[in-house]
């Protein structure tokens, strides 16, 4: 048994760190070299000397934070070497450009899952099963109460929700990057044929997706002053940050909903203050995490991001998987 310091990858100052390569993964503070799994802001921080990511992630990041960052990019599956360690990105199915990162050193394989999902999503590459010895997995939804419905079912529910209230304007809150595009893509296949508007932040990401070759339905960028009648019966996509506060006063006769995995729980749905919740997530559900653990053939598993206690205990008891803890 090795001590924590001897793991190829470990937690240091609250972040994943590979000492041999002197490289950090999604660091929350400025470092010299940072590997970025995907372009969500909770996985990115300003001020690093060098970023390394997939091409898509780099483009999305630059679109969001400007060109002033130095990013080196690699294709999925393309191996590169840092201090003798082989590193490669593999699709994680979370959003466009998102990746798992594999490290190989002296016959030992490590895999950082990044944020991932197994569900179908036409706006990004499907999760790729990668075999590994050590797996570091997220477990945001690591309880068996989380079981996602097929995303086309959710899209149909959304479509019904809008068309059942033709006199209302339906505001659907969702993350600007990833979730919004996935929803647009799914809604396109439903019976909903009304107008769709999106907030500037979402609109921008839609364009980036299109430039990267993803087919995203055209939406109208929402302007501040819109006539109420014009918005009746239509769908407006907004980022969750606008759900509280004065922004909503721009609209009249609205119904609101939030698209998030957490919405599968009634108490959270009620407390959220939205009229309705649609349980759709870009993270894996319980079965998804278990499947990845199994198919990766990892003999040792670490969990982070989420309540890891339950899933760890379950794997140890039921599947006899060796679950390790970083200690922080």
């Amino acid at each position, binding site marked *: 048994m090795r001590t924590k310091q001897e793991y190829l990858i470990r937690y240091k100052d609250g972040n994943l760190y590979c000492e041999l390569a002197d490289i950090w993964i999604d660091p929350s503070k400025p470092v010299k070299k940072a590997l970025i799994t995907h372009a969500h802001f909770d996985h990115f921080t300003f001020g690093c000397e060098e970023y390394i990511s997939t091409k898509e992630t780099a483009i999305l990041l630059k679109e969001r934070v400007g060109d002033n960052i130095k990013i080196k990019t690699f294709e999925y599956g393309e191996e590169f070497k840092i201090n003798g360690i082989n590193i490669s990105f593999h699709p994680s199915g979370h959003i466009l450009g998102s990746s798992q990162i594999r490290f190989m050193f002296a016959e030992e394989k490590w895999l950082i899952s990044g944020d991932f999902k197994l569900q179908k999503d036409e706006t990004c590459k499907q999760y790729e099963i990668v075999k590994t010895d050590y797996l570091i997995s997220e477990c945001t939804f690591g309880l068996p*109460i989380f079981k996602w419905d097929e995303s086309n079912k959710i899209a149909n529910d959304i479509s019904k929700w809008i068309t059942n209230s033709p006199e209302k304007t339906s505001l659907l809150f969702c993350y600007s990057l990833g979730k919004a595009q996935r929803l647009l893509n799914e809604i396109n296949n439903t019976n909903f044929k009304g107008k769709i508007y999106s907030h500037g932040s979402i609109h921008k990401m839609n364009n980036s997706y299109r430039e990267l070759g993803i087919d995203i339905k055209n939406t109208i960028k929402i302007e501040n002053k819109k006539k109420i009648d014009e918005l009746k019966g239509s769908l407006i996509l907004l980022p969750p940050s606008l759900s509280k506060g004065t922004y909503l006063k721009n609209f009249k006769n609205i119904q609101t909903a939030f698209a998030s995995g957490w919405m599968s*729980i009634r108490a*959270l*749905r009620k407390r959220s203050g939205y009229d*309705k919740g649609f349980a759709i997530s870009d993270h894996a559900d319980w079965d998804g995490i278990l499947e990845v653990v199994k198919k990766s053939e990892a003999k040792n598993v670490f969990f982070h991001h989420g*309540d890891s206690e339950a899933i760890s205990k379950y794997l140890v008891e039921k599947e006899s998987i060796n679950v390790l803890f970083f200690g922080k």
Partner: protein
Amino acid sequence: MSLKKFSELFVDLDSSNSTNNKIEVLKNYFFSNDPIDNSWAIYLLTGKSNKRFISGRYLKNLFSQIYEYPVWLIDTCYLKVGDSAEVITLLLKNKSTSRKKELSNISLNELLSKTIPDLSKLNEEEKNLQIKNIWERLPEDYHLIFNKILTGTFRVGVSIGLITKSISKLINIDEEIISHRLMGNFKPSIDSYEFLINKNINLEELNSKPFPFLLANTIEDKIFKNSINDFQFEWKYDGIRLQLIKRSGNISLWTRGQELVNESFPELVEKMSHIKDDFVLDGELLVWNFKEQIAFDFSLLQKRINRKSPTRSIQIKYPIIFIAYDLLEINGRDIREIKLENRRIELEKYFSKWQNKTENNISDIFKICDLIFPNDWPDALTYKEKSRENNTEGLIIKKKTSIYSSGRKKGIWWKYKVDPMQLDAVLIYAKGGSGRRAGLYTDYSFALWKDEELIKFASAYSGLTNFEIKELDKWIRKNTIEKFGPVRSLKPEMVFEISFEKIQISKRHKSGIAVRFPRITKWRKDKKINDADSLENAYELMKKI
């Protein structure tokens, strides 16, 4: 008509925050379903019965046994969800192996009058098998309803008022009448629903039902602009609000919660039967200190409420009184539409007649409430401050011209409660909430100083804003000393102002005191734990009253 419709109704009601929406949804539901299912729907939605057929614990164990899930994992899920029925529903997803959903067309009536009650006729093994069968044969969308009814936890944000409004809209009859018809025992049946929607207004059946209660609102400043002479002032007693009904010689005592409590207070029923007139009185039931002519504490009344057919010695030990506020009906004549001041005259007139003409002395169990006559508003305030001395909660202020309508009508009656007592206390434990507050630490315990030690004196879970709850939850997670199951002991650091209604000596508590209705009224971020109050301060409060 099927459970499907009801299930959809539940989802619709649950995903709307708009009252008008809910009324519309309910109206459409009642319109498109048959009377028997409608009566069950009303029964469930108004929470008339929340009978528990099996416990949440039983359900969890059963699931664990059938699907080989460790119980601890189900319990962990429960902490996140806060409702056993919902946890099991979520876990049941995609579990069923049977393709055929034979129960997809089951009616609400069949489920509630047969399928579920029949479970109790089975032995444990058969019962477990039957529940598993139902789970497998019932479409997943209905699992939540089924599990909630099973565990007696079916609740949705619909008040009786909304049901009343929707039915009133459906058949175009005044809300007041529907509300009256909904009072008392509502037994689900075709008859009870048809009675409810009958277009004929003067129905005999109403005789067995109490009137909808008129309730007081919390005082608003604007009332002080009015002349004091426009109002009638009464003490606000802390007992059980009751309608005492005598019609065709039959007496019934109805609580505000619409329970018939004749059996708990036989001496009152007996005494009132000597009065010759028929009547409906609105008033308060109290355990009475006849020597000092004030109410005893509510805790003594509790010793009577749940005891049916109390013995003579209990009746003597906890002597009750009914204090009438209002006369609503006299010898079959509904007088709710006449002004309060005139009803009062009638009440006084009949009371003195009953006192003099009834063979049996009724005044040892029945009186009418004394009125208070403040000279001006500051004087009213003085009365209010005195209310603790006579064990009342403050004043009730009623507009003299008000008619007796139903519900919490605005601008008619007000409650002017005595300011609560307050202590600054230190947060020492937190527990996860349930239901709406699941996943957050929302149940708090507070302590006061005793020398160098913090002694727990009250628990409270209301009073913080959602924002504060979230903020505090974060702090709690970071400042936990120890976890005991769902409870965390915390670093003593946060001070809160706790308000309560009453304080008394209690041998059951380590602190030696018990407080009533404790609630958080302020997060005293400005205070350090050394600024918090001590038990001494609490004892001082007790001496003052």
